[in-house]
């Protein structure tokens, strides 16, 4: 399992456009990807409902994880989206 841990910097947290962009990017990858808030339970990163249910706010830490070919590449992109101001 490969993972990235980042702090969310967007004012709205992982809601609205950041959440939409994050989920759309994750959904295009042919891998299972999860996201968790802090040490919480990981949820499906490809579902907007799952991501919104985490209620990630600015300053929260999220852990994004995937396994398989291309995991590093997609996780780098998702980490960048999640941590963008």
């Amino acid at each position, binding site marked *: 399992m490969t993972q990235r841990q980042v702090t969310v910097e967007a004012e709205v947290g992982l*809601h609205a456009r950041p959440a939409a962009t994050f989920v759309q990017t994750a959904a295009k990858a042919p891998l299972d990807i999860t996201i968790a808030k802090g040490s*919480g339970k990981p949820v499906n990163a490809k579902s907007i409902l*799952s991501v*919104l*249910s985490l209620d990630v706010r600015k300053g929260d830490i999220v852990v994004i994880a995937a396994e398989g070919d291309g995991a590093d590449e997609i996780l780098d992109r998702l980490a960048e989206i999640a941590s963008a101001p």
Partner: protein
Amino acid sequence: MAETAPLPLDPRAVRLTASAADRDDAILQCGRALMEVGAVESPYLDAMLERERAVSTYMGEGVAIPHGTLKAKEVVRHDALCVLRFPDGVDWDGERVTVCVGIAARGDGHLRLLSALARILMDPERARALREAEEVAEVLRLLEPIEEEE
């Protein structure tokens, strides 16, 4: 994070058999329902349209959650939800929406409401029941927050 406070849904803001010409019409009907329970002032309606044009509020499971922009917070008097069912469906940028949950919230209160709603809709049975609800009381019951598992 664990959020079990009741959702601020006034039974008067639940409409089971609404119909709308298009997405914007559906959004405006939500805005008016929020106005009628005294939650928002009229400028909030334009802010809801503006918000929708910036990013779709479609959430999945046939549900959209129209709400205003951050700068419209000053015309929100109190946090509130409305639920409008559109049995004939509304075309929402290519998605079919049958339930709109309109949100009015001061501060970042809408984020709490939104995530509580997301947890409810993640249960496909509950989402289906919400789409097919035939009584206001049932809608109110379905939107009772789910207890956190952790």
